C-alpha cells in the first residue's frame, strides 16, 4: 500500500487540466448565472412576474418545483432555476471523469500496467474516489465563496454552502454510482451509457412525481438536490441521504471489484444481430442507423424546448406587464403583437439551434473520416458524392423534423393562451428561417468539402449570430452588425409581411455553395 502517493501524484498529473477546466466551468456557471439573474430581476415585483411564467406544470416538470414561490427572493429564484439543471451537469461531469479513470483506463490497458506492480487490487479505485471527492469538495468551497462574494441580498454564506454542497453531493453520488457500474459493465461506452440512462430515469421520475404526487419525488436521488430547498428552508437532511447512499455505493464497488477479474464485468455486453437487415444493407439505411441516437436525442430536446417556450405564452400578458426588460426587447406593446413578436424571436433562436443540430450531424462525417472508419467503406463501390449526398439528406430531413417538433411543442405548450395561435401560424414562424438555415448548412458543407481543418469557423459564426439575434433589440446593436446574421435578412413572420427577395437570394447562394462543396469534397485528399 505504500505506493499510493506515487499513484495519486501520477493521476493528478495526468488529469490536472481536465480537473481545472471542469472546476472553472462549473463554478463560473453557478456564480455568473447568480449574478446575471440578480441583475435581470432585482425587485420582488419582477421576480413575481417570473413566478407567474414558471409556476406551471410544464416548467416544473422541466426545471423542478420551489418551496419559495410565495416569497420569491433572489436566492429562491436562483436555486429554483439553476439547481436541477446544474445538478445534471455535475452528474454528467462525475460520470465522464469517473469512467475515464476506471473502465476507460482498464480498456486501454493502463490498469494492467499498474496492476503488474506491487499495488493492492483496490488501490486504483481508492485513488479515483479520493481524487473525485477532493475535486467536488474543492468545487463546493470555491462556489460557496464565489456566491458569497456577490453580496446578493437573501444569499448568505450558510445558504450558499448548502447550495454548493448539494450539487457536490450529487457529483459524489454519481461518482460512486459510476464506480459500481464500471465493475458491472465491460466497456467505457457501456458505463457512460448506463450511467446516463439512470440519470435520465431519475430526471423523468422526479418530473412526473413533481407534478402529480410531490411526496414520491424523494425516491429519485436527483431530487435530493432541490429538496434541500436552499435559500428557502435550508434543509440539510438530503445531504445526509446523499452521503449515506454514496457510502453504500462505495461499499458495493469495492466488493465487486475484489470479486472480478481484470477486464471482466458482471454483465456480459449485449450481443446483436448476426446479419444486417434489409434496411441496414441500404446505403441510406446504415447511414441513418449510425445517426439515429443523435437524431432522436435532438428531436426530444426540440420538442421539450418548444413546449417550455410554448408554456410561456400562456402567461405572456401578465409576464410582459411586469417585466421591463422584455418590454424593452420587444418594442410593440399590444397583446397579440407581443405574442407574435415573442414567437418571431423564438423562431430565430430555434432556427439557430436547428442549424447547429444539422451541422453537428453532417460534421460527424469528418470524424468518421479522421478516425479511418470510412476507409473500408470507400474501398467499396461507394462514391463520396453519394456518401455526402445521403448524409445531407438525412441531416436536412432531421432538421425539418426538428422544426416540426419545435412547432408541435410550441403549439401544445401554448394551449392555455387567451387566443391560442394556430399550428400554421407557428409553423410559418419557424419555416421562414429555412433559407438561412440551408445557407449556413451549405457553408458548413463547403468547409467540410474544401477546408475540413477550418470547419469550426462555422461554430464561431453561429455563436456570434446567436448573440446578435438574441441581444440585438436589447442592446440596441447597430444595423451593420445585425446584418452579419443571415437570419436577420428574413421577415419575422407573422409580425412582418412575407418577402420573397431574400428568400430566393439565400436559396440561390445555397445552391452555389453546395455545388462547390460537392466538387471540392470529390476532389480533395481523404484524411
Amino acid at each position, binding site marked *: 500500500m505504500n505506493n499510493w502517493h506515487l499513484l495519486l501524484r501520477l493521476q493528478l498529473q495526468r488529469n490536472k487540466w481536465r480537473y481545472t477546466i471542469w472546476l472553472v466551468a462549473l463554478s463560473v456557471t453557478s456564480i455568473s448565472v447568480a449574478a446575471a439573474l440578480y441583475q435581470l430581476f432585482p425587485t420582488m415585483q419582477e421576480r413575481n412576474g417570473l413566478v407567474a411564467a414558471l409556476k406551471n406544470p410544464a416548467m416544473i416538470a422541466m426545471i423542478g418545483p420551489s418551496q419559495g414561490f410565495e416569497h420569491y427572493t433572489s436566492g429562491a429564484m436562483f436555486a429554483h432555476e439553476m439547481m436541477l439543471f446544474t445538478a445534471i451537469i455535475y452528474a454528467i461531469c462525475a460520470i465522464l471523469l469517473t469512467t475515464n479513470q476506471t473502465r476507460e483506463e482498464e480498456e486501454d490497458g493502463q490498469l494492467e500496467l499498474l496492476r503488474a506492480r506491487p499495488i493492492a487490487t483496490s488501490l486504483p479505485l481508492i485513488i479515483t474516489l479520493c481524487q473525485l471527492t477532493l475535486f467536488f469538495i474543492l468545487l463546493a468551497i470555491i462556489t460557496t465563496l464565489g456566491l458569497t462574494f456577490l453580496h446578493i441580498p437573501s444569499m448568505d454564506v450558510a445558504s450558499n454552502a448548502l447550495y454548493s454542497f448539494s450539487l457536490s453531493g450529487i457529483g459524489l453520488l454519481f461518482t460512486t454510482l459510476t464506480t459500481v457500474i464500471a465493475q458491472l459493465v*465491460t*466497456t467505457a*461506452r*457501456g458505463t457512460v451509457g448506463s450511467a446516463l440512462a439512470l440519470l435520465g430515469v431519475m430526471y423523468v421520475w422526479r418530473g412526473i412525481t413533481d407534478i402529480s404526487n410531490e411526496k414520491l419525488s424523494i425516491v429519485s436521488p436527483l431530487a435530493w438536490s432541490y429538496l434541500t430547498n436552499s435559500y428557502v428552508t435550508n434543509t440539510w437532511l438530503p445531504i445526509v441521504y446523499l452521503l449515506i447512499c454514496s457510502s453504500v455505493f462505495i461499499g458495493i464497488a469495492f466488493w465487486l471489484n475484489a470479486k472480478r477479474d481484470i477486464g471482466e464485468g458482471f454483465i456480459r*455486453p*449485449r*450481443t*446483436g*444481430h*448476426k*446479419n*444486417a437487415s434489409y434496411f*441496414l*444493407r441500404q*446505403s441510406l439505411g*446504415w447511414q441513418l*442507423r*449510425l445517426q439515429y*441516437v443523435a437524431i432522436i436525442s435532438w428531436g426530444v430536446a426540440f420538442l421539450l424546448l418548444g413546449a417550455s417556450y410554448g408554456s410561456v405564452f400562456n402567461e405572456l400578458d401578465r409576464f410582459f406587464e411586469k417585466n421591463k426588460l422584455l418590454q424593452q426587447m420587444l418594442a410593440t406593446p399590444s397583446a397579440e403583437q407581443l405574442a407574435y413578436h415573442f414567437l418571431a424571436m423564438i423562431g430565430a433562436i430555434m432556427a439557430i439551434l436547428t442549424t447547429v443540430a444539422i451541422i453537428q450531424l453532417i460534421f460527424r462525417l469528418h470524424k*468518421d473520416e479522421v*478516425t*479511418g*472508419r470510412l*476507409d*473500408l*467503406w*470507400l*474501398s*467499396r*463501390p*461507394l*462514391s463520396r458524392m453519394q456518401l455526402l449526398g445521403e448524409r445531407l439528406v438525412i441531416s436536412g430531413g432531421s432538421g425539418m423534423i426538428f422544426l416540426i417538433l419545435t412547432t408541435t411543442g410550441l403549439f401544445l405548450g401554448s394551449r392555455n393562451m387567451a387566443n391560442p395561435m394556430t399550428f400554421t401560424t407557428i409553423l410559418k414562424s419557424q419555416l421562414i428561417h429555412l433559407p438561412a438555415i440551408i445557407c449556413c448548412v451549405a457553408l458548413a458543407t463547403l468547409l467540410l468539402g474544401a477546408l475540413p481543418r477550418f470547419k469550426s469557423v462555422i461554430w464561431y459564426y453561429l455563436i456570434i449570430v446567436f448573440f446578435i439575434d438574441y441581444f440585438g433589440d436589447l442592446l440596441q446593436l447597430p444595423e451593420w452588425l445585425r446584418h452579419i446574421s443571415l437570419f436577420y435578412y428574413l421577415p419575422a413572420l407573422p409580425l412582418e409581411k412575407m418577402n420573397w427577395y431574400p428568400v430566393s437570394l439565400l436559396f440561390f447562394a445555397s445552391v452555389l455553395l453546395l455545388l462547390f462543396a460537392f466538387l471540392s469534397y470529390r*476532389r*480533395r*485528399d*481523404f484524411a
Partner: protein
Amino acid sequence: MPIIEIANLSKKFGSFTALHNVNLTVNQGEVVGFIGPNGAGKSTTIRILLGLLRPSSGSVRIFNKDAFTQAIPIHKKMAYVPGDVTLWPNLTGGQVIDILLQMNGPIPTQRRDELITLFQLDPTKKCQTYSKGNRQKIALIAALATEADLYIFDEPTSGLDPLMERVFQQCVKELQHHKKTILLSSHILSEVERLCDKIAIIKDGTIIETGSLQTMQHVTRALYTVDVQKPLDDLYQQAGVFDIQQDGLRYTFYVDNSAIPHVMTYLAMHHIVSITSMPLTLEDLFMAHYEKGGD
C-alpha cells in the same frame, strides 16, 4: 496483362514529399509483396490506389482506369483490408460484413459463413468489444468473401495469432490458384517470402528494388559460417566480405554473390574444417538494402 500500373507517381503533403517517382506494375495473377519500414510510403501508395488520395503527379491506373476519377468502377472488382481496422462501435461484426458485402452486389452467404467459421469470428458482438485481431478478421472476411479480381492487403496479419495467420495464408494461396491479382504489404518477411512471386521494396518514398526473389539474390549476399584450424588473419582484406564475426576458430560473414568465386579460392587455400552457407532470406535482403542506403 497489367492490373496495376503506377508510373512516376509523386505525392506531396504540403512541403513534405511522401512518394517520389514511384513505378510499379502488377500483372494479372501476380502476388506482389510490398515491403518497407514504417513511414516509407506503403500506406500512402495504397491509399492512392484506393482513390482516397490524389497523386501530385504521375499516373495510377487499375484495370486500365484512373484510380482517382474512376474509383467506383474499379472498386466493383476490388477488395481491401486496412492495417488498422476502425469500425463504428454500435454495429455488430456480422452487420459490418453484410453492409460491406452488399455494396458489391448480392451477399455470397455461403462463402461468408465459411470464412466466419474458418476465422473463428463471433459475428454477434458489437464492434466496440472486438480486439484489434478480431476487427482485422472482420475486414478480412468481408474482403475474402468478395468476388474480386484484385485484392489489396495492408499489413493484414499484424493483429492475428499464428494460427489465424496460417488461415489467411491458405486463403491467399487459394486466390492465387484462381489467378487473382494480389498486392500484399507486410512487415512479416517470411509471409511475403512464402506467398509472393514478386517483391517491391519501398524506402523513403522511393521503390528501391523490384523483382522476383531469385533475381534479387543475384545482386546481393549470402551468409557463410566457416570452421578452420588456423585463424584467417587476412580475411578482412578480401573484397566482397562483410560483417565478420569471430568466435574462436569459427567465422561468420556475408559474401557478395559477385565475389563468391574469389572468396572460395581464398578459403580453399586455408585449412577448412566445415563450411555452411545460408540461403538468402528476405530479412537479409531487407537489411542489406537498408544498410546500403542507411546513412
